[in-house]
């Protein structure tokens, strides 16, 4: 994946570059908003990581300019501002996701991957398939190897998100944000309990577990 990193903190940019390159991505760095805008216009990227507060041109202005020019490249905002209002402002400017500093690298990479995948599967599939697991989005039913799996509404949403991001690591924070739509940090890992319930429904009684725990990151649904 080609990733543009627009970040004025050069050490943070280097750390991102190193980590993402190790995962096989190609990174281009820009040290401020102006430079970022030039780079974004000049090249084709799959995802852009944009710091919100930068000298010369801030991240929100940069993304607004790109969106006006018709550039739809997914954007992940990075910010030290984590208030609800800040997040909303970032998303309204055309950002696709919002990550508050400081973050774990696993969180960053999971979100970058989720963004790139989002673009590929912009289709309006009515049935999701991951391995032998099948989800009917209209009939609200789930089968594995032909067996019905009975899910609560929230479990259904949780599984849908996992299936849409099959093969990718998703973090607990991402799940809380995307499935429950809460942006706070719970003191206990409530998500773990929900995942283990879901796991007991889709993996119990089958020869091969699909829902994996990724150490230090979160979970992954494998085919």
């Amino acid at each position, binding site marked *: 994946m080609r990733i543009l990193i627009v970040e004025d903190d050069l050490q943070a940019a280097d750390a991102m570059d190193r980590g993402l390159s190790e995962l096989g991505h190609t990174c281009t760095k820009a040290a401020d908003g102006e430079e970022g805008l030039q780079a974004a216009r000049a090249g084709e990227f799959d995802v852009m990581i944009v710091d919100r507060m930068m000298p010369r041109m801030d991240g929100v202005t940069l993304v607004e300019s790109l969106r006006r020019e018709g550039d739809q490249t997914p954007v992940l905002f990075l910010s030290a501002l984590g208030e*609800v209002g800040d997040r909303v402002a970032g998303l309204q400017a055309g950002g696709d996701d919002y990550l508050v500093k400081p973050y774990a690298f696993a969180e960053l990479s999971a979100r970058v991957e989720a963004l790139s995948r989002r673009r590929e599967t912009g289709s309006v599939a009515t049935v999701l398939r991951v391995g032998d697991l099948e989800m009917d989005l209209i009939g609200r039913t789930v089968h594995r190897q032909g067996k019905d799996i009975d899910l609560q509404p929230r479990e259904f949403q949780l599984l849908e998100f996992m299936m849409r991001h099959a093969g990718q690591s998703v973090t607990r924070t991402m799940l809380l944000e995307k499935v*429950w739509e809460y942006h*706070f940090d719970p*003191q206990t890992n409530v998500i773990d309990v929900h995942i283990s319930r879901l796991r007991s429904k889709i993996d119990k009684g089958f020869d091969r577990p699909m829902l994996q725990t990724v150490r*230090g990151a979160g979970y992954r649904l494998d085919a």
Partner: protein
Amino acid sequence: MRLPRIFRTTPFRLTLLFLALFASAASAFLAYIYVATAGEATRRTDRDITREMISLASVYNRAGVDAVNQALIERAASERPFLYLLMTPDGRRISGSIEESPIEDFAGKPAWTTFTITDEAPNGRLVRHPARGLQERLRGGEILFVGADVGEDEAYVMKIVRALWGAGALVVILGLAGGVLVSRNVSRSMASLTGVVDAVRNGDLGARAPVRGTRDEFDELALGLNEMLDRLERSMAGHKHAGDAIAHDLRSPLTRLRARLEAAYLDVEAGKGDPTHALAQALEDTDGVLKTFAAVLSIARLQAAGTAPDPVLFDPTELAADIAELYEPLCEDKGIDFAAELAKELTIRGNREFMAQALANILDNAIKYTPTGGAIMLRVRRRSSGEVEFSVTDTGPGVPEEDRERVVHRFVRLENSRNEPGAGLGLSLVAAVAEAHGGRLELDEGPGKVGEMGPGLRVALILPRVA
């Protein structure tokens, strides 16, 4: 020039203003009295003169000029004599009590005049009196002048004028004295308040304004000032305590973190051991520090802002059901009986995200302290006051009554829970959220002691009714 303090006070200035207004009103009133009395005296004199003129003219008409002459002589002896002058048609004196007419250019039409007569007092001094007079031409061409000494009237009017001046002066003096008294009184009350402000400015946060119990606006101000100072003092104490608590909350994990990193570094340097485990633990410690930091920041921002950001109207029941759904599996896993009782058709106004976090923190706390086999009840209801109350009741060990007030304040942790990470911040954040929404947090005893369990804790988040 610097005026004495009393003259610079607001009450004194107000007094002056009112005095000016009152003095103008009094002046208008006194002027009216003057016109009514002095004018009346002049009118009466004029009437009398006119009547005398008519009476003499009728004598003339009936009996001729000699009869008038005779009448003048008779009347000169009366008690309050008029002044007379009878003249030939060409203005030469025939008879009368004055030598010549004060009216010099007589055109022949009746004419009024005000003039001065000079009289000799018994002691020989000359006294001048003001007088009024009317001159008319009689039918036969003779000229008759009738005048009257108005000295007495004038004296009467002067008396009234003097009385009016006296009254005016009295008004001003009384007004000024009243102003000084009122200003003194108000100044004294203000001085006690100013004294408190000065004391606070000089760093004595314990200073309080005296309340006199008169329930007037000074008492109200004093009460308000005292309440403000109470809050300020509590808040300052909170900040001071917060500093200590942040130091405690952050120093321990940071010290641990440093020790781990140092040990790992030394191990790697000495070429022995695998640093992976130490690094993983160091990361975990860092996350702990960041969590504490984030909570501290949230609380500080809420308290600094005073109100919740981006408030919206929403259904508290829906939110509670949502959070209940999030936490219910956690209860089940721990073997805690979870139930919810949610009233319908309620509305609250606030920041949904903060409210969700507050509710999550309360539930989180309850689950943390409730032992397996215990129970947790989540309730949403409307209180009779119209307020909306979220409450979570658990069967954990509860919080001793004397500690409840403390436990909701920032960073306070009970001694026996010192080792639970971040436990001090949960309810502090809830309290900050409640306050930012104009509500409050209440802690009570739970259902009581049952066997090994209890007495439990009931945490209520109470929000104001939506107008």
